[in-house]
């Protein structure tokens, strides 16, 4: 029986983050793909509070919420550090992850998935918020410095998913003209071996996301 199991969804950036962390540490794990429109009894058992992926199961003990799981992985297994060692740098890394998850990512998703005025407002908000990340990445190869770290892992939505979304929706939000440093980071990021092998294929992802942009779509919509 596998000691480490991951309940995930290949299309979910949150789920892919955890896979990146596990691979960075060289942890062997059993992967269980969840159908989010028809969640398994096991997922509901291991994450009764939020009923979401990803959920890591380590020696039968479940951990939920991607950034919490990643910190757990960093603390439990040897290998390259995901979080910085210095307490101040750690606090900053946690700050940016929270910012990406609760502010930036939400606004960017709404700019795509919300119709009318709400979408327009979200576009403006996202444009402002991305400026903070543009400033933060200046002069650095990755948010983690020379190597990929926690913030880079958490920014996978911005690094990959959003590029696909922009194409589908004809959005021109994250452009080289407006965000040269952030776009440079995107290029380096998606070509990094750890990231490249942990992304859902572009055509499949496009297929999944396209319907969400249609007005009147009433099918399953991942909740941000």
């Amino acid at each position, binding site marked *: 029986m596998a000691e480490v199991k991951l309940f995930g969804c290949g299309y979910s950036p949150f789920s892919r983050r955890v896979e990146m962390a596990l691979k960075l540490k060289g942890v062997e794990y059993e992967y269980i793909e969840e159908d989010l429109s028809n969640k398994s009894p096991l997922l509901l058992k291991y994450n009764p509070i939020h009923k979401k992926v990803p959920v890591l199961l380590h020696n039968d003990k479940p951990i939920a*919420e991607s950034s919490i799981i990643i910190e*757990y992985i960093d603390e439990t297994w040897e290998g390259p550090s995901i979080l910085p060692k210095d307490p*101040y740098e750690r606090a900053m890394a946690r*700050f940016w992850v929270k910012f990406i998850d609760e502010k930036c990512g939400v606004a960017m998703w709404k700019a795509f998935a919300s119709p009318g005025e709400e979408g327009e407002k979200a576009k403006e908000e996202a444009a402002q918020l991305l400026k903070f990340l543009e400033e933060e990445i200046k002069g650095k190869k990755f948010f983690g410095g020379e190597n990929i770290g926690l913030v880079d892992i958490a920014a996978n939505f911005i690094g990959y998913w959003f590029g696909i979304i922009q194409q589908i929706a004809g959005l021109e939000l994250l452009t080289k003209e407006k965000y040269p440093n952030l776009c440079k980071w995107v290029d380096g990021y998606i070509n990094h071996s750890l990231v490249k092998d942990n992304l859902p294929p572009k055509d499949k992802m496009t297929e999944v996301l396209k319907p969400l942009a249609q007005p009147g779509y009433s099918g399953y919509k991942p909740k941000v």
Partner: protein
Amino acid sequence: MADEVILLDAHYSMFGMRVRLALAEKGIEYEYREENLANKSPLLLEMNPVHKKIPVLIHNKKPICESLIIVQYIDEVWKDKSPLLPSDPYQRAQARFWADFIDKKMYESGGKIWKTKGEEKEAGKKEFIENIKLLEGVLGEKPYFGGEEFGYLDVALITFYSWFYAYETVGEFSIEQHCPKLIEWGKRCMERESVSKSLADPHKVYDFVLMLRKKYGVE
């Protein structure tokens, strides 16, 4: 070399109280600066340009924002006294999970109780009660969420305890009726000097809430 520690805060903020509490637990000397949230200081805007919110801890001129991030920072820097986070990684993950739950769910549902009326208020009340019942379940028979010792999750939740009286009075319900063990835990925590000196007086919180309700026209 002496540490310079400044806290930008607002007296009634349950988030600010967490930082005050963590600093008190560790016996750290600091300068407290009360912010007028209707007229934020240039320093606050400089130290937290992203969110422009309190609390902000400024340690040797470097700012740290977001209350739970600040509490973890304090725990990691002043690690020789009163550890707040558990030493076991799994227990740590659980403590972080429930602290995150408090921030995502309780703040919103509690807010609905005093900020809204009618159906929305009732829905907020129902959600709030569900949330605290879950937390009471997490506490179980332990004296503290941290086990035998007061810890991170106790810090995260006890500051909401100072708002319980306001929620109950505005919401017209009794938290003790639903969660007697949680109230017992609250009273136990209040016996700690660090807690009693860091939390705002619940009756004053209630007056503050009434003032805000008037201001926002929720009556």
